[in-house]
């Protein structure tokens, strides 16, 4: 591995050559920047992985069952496991999806589950991302490059190849494809922060990269608009656009990114959409609290992977605890994402603490509180020096005929010595994630 570490600059030059960037808006202007890559991989032993993999498959299966239930029978609400209010007040719940069961009953085809490893070695789930989780393309292309620049590293270490991610995506698309239509990745365009990923996955999966203007819905069927009014039926759309912008006639009317009447075609079962609309109800930070209970309810099993200890101020007992222990907890706004809306009690002054107390008392459903997990630091290279920084892991779970976990993941690290926020939009970097074969 030493030779790979020495080749950090070479790897980053290859990244530049391949245009591996992400976009970011600063003061209203779009900038593209390289995603800083650290050459020291996160290494997960085979033994650890076996447990993580089983836990992720279990969790995503339960989440898919929950989504089918919540938009149909709502048995989990009737059974009193999840309060009704948590479903209907979730910003991710979409009443328009009631009664709709997507192709092959799969709602979350690609799930991004964020985990951290506590100092006692235990893996803990921090967040589920079931809408449009991104980031897999970065370790995928990083591996392509690191194998080039340091082949000896991979001769000496038995690591699962991670360059098959696009094949997994393609299989998931093929599995739900309606009437063997075209497979497209629908991108909001060149100025989306994850545009590199959209175009790279389209290339590697061998599917069409489509922009909103390329698609049209006629007679509740989606078509790709070919030259001179030629229409080709679309069977599956891996959309990289948020629910609310997907169809201006069904949701946000000012959206120029979506396809008018797409929702009608989807509701009639004439096209598969990956991931399904309305999945936001299951990755809501408030619903997260209930996921281990979902596992027990739907699968009759104890959850293999645990959540971080979480409190819901919605429940009086939890509210009392949160208000009394604010200084030691991390408070999260359930409506925010990307590392925003996360506040550490220990970093807040008296005025800020008073403000947040007031908000928790007046809008208890909007907040969750968690014990601060002292997760492990990973080694990273800064110049010639090895230093330690906080890092998480986004694991990708693909649901098709079976549920599979990609043998890799996106390890993001914070570049600030005092920060726990690893998101790329907030300056974080990334590492390759090695899953050992033995």
């Amino acid at each position: 591995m030493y030779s790979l570490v020495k080749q950090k600059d070479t790897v980053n030059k290859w990244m530049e050559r391949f245009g591996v960037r992400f976009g970011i808006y600063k003061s209203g202007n779009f900038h593209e920047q390289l995603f800083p890559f650290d050459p020291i991989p996160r290494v997960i032993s085979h033994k650890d992985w076996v447990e993580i993999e089983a836990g992720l498959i279990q969790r995503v299966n339960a989440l898919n069952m929950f989504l089918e239930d919540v938009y149909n029978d709502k048995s989990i609400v009737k059974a009193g496991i999840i309060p009704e209010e948590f479903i209907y007040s979730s910003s991710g719940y979409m009443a328009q999806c009631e009664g709709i069961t997507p192709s092959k009953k799969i709602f979350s085809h690609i799930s991004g589950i964020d985990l951290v490893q506590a100092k006692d070695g235990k893996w803990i789930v921090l967040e589920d991302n079931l809408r449009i989780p991104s980031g897999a393309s970065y370790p995928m292309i990083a591996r392509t490059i690191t194998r080039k620049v340091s082949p000896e590293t991979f001769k000496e270490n038995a690591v699962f190849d991670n360059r098959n991610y696009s094949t997994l995506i393609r299989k998931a698309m093929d599995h739900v494809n309606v009437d063997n239509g075209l497979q497209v990745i629908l991108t909001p365009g060149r100025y989306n922060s994850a545009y590199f990923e959209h175009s790279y996955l389209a290339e590697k999966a061998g599917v069409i990269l489509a922009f909103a203007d390329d698609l049209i819905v006629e007679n509740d069927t989606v078509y790709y608009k070919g030259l001179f009014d030629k229409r080709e039926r679309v069977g599956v759309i891996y959309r990289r656009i948020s629910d609310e912008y997907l169809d201006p006639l069904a949701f946000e009317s000012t959206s120029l990114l979506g396809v008018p009447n797409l929702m009608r075609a989807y509701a009639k079962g004439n096209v598969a959409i990956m991931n399904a609309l309305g999945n936001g109800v299951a990755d809501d930070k408030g619903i997260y609290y209930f996921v281990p209970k979902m596992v027990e309810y739907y699968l009759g099993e104890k959850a293999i992977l645990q959540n971080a200890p979480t409190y819901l101020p919605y429940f009086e007992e939890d509210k009392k605890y949160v208000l009394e222990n604010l200084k030691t907890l991390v408070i999260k706004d359930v409506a925010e994402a990307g590392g925003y809306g996360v506040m550490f009690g220990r970093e807040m002054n008296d005025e800020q603490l008073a403000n947040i107390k007031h908000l928790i008392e007046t809008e208890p459903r909007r907040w969750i509180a968690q014990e601060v997990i002292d997760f492990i630091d990973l080694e990273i290279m800064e110049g010639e020096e090895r230093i330690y920084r906080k890092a998480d892991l986004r694991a990708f779970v693909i649901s098709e005929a079976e549920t599979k976990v990609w043998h890799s993941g996106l390890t993001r690290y914070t570049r600030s010595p005092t920060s726990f926020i690893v998101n790329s939009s907030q300056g974080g970097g990334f590492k390759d994630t090695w899953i050992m074969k033995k």
Partner: protein
Amino acid sequence: MQTLTATKINSGISSAKANRLYWLGRYAERVYLTLHMLRKHFDLMIDEDKDSYISFCTKMGIENKYTSADDFTKRYLFDCSNPESVINMLERVKDNAMMLREEIMTETLCYIELSIAHMNKPEVQNKGIEGLQRITDYMLAFWGSIDERIVNNQIRHSIKFGKYLESLDLHIRFDYQFNRVEEIFARMLHSVEQECYICDELTLLTLKQHMTFDDYKNIGVLQLINSLFRS
């Protein structure tokens, strides 16, 4: 060994994609030929005609807003705020290429990334045109990659239609001899005959009638060339 890039079964071309393919070809060829033409004018500026850049601007059909040969060298080559500059031509190539990554592939797109990174280096900008031989090399590699990697004839020939159309336009503007122009026209016709559906057939018929030794420099011919694209 497992296959890591899936085979593309369908490759739909929408009007917007056709537009991007065409302009990718045009801008990429514009970069390559502009550098080629510029080298001739820079040679003239050494000792024969220090104001040769003015006739370059006239032939290109751009305004001479430059105050001197030095000013022209800096701003026409490297100034990102100058919409006519070579670096901006490359940015337009990149704009289209990025939207076509799944067709042209990362290995082709990277020559454009490399070109822009090279042009933005201060040491390259200090060298002027001499430092840009590498851009020419990258553009030749780009075209080689287009030929080698794109298996879909319609995609490849749509890009090459744009390339030859730009080449025709610039060779006529720069007073090249008829036999050279005729040769490029023949290459363009070859692309049009190979599953390229974005050429307006009626305009092409008219152009064929005017692509003669006596007529080819007429302004009407340039207008016909620039009306050939349809999507």
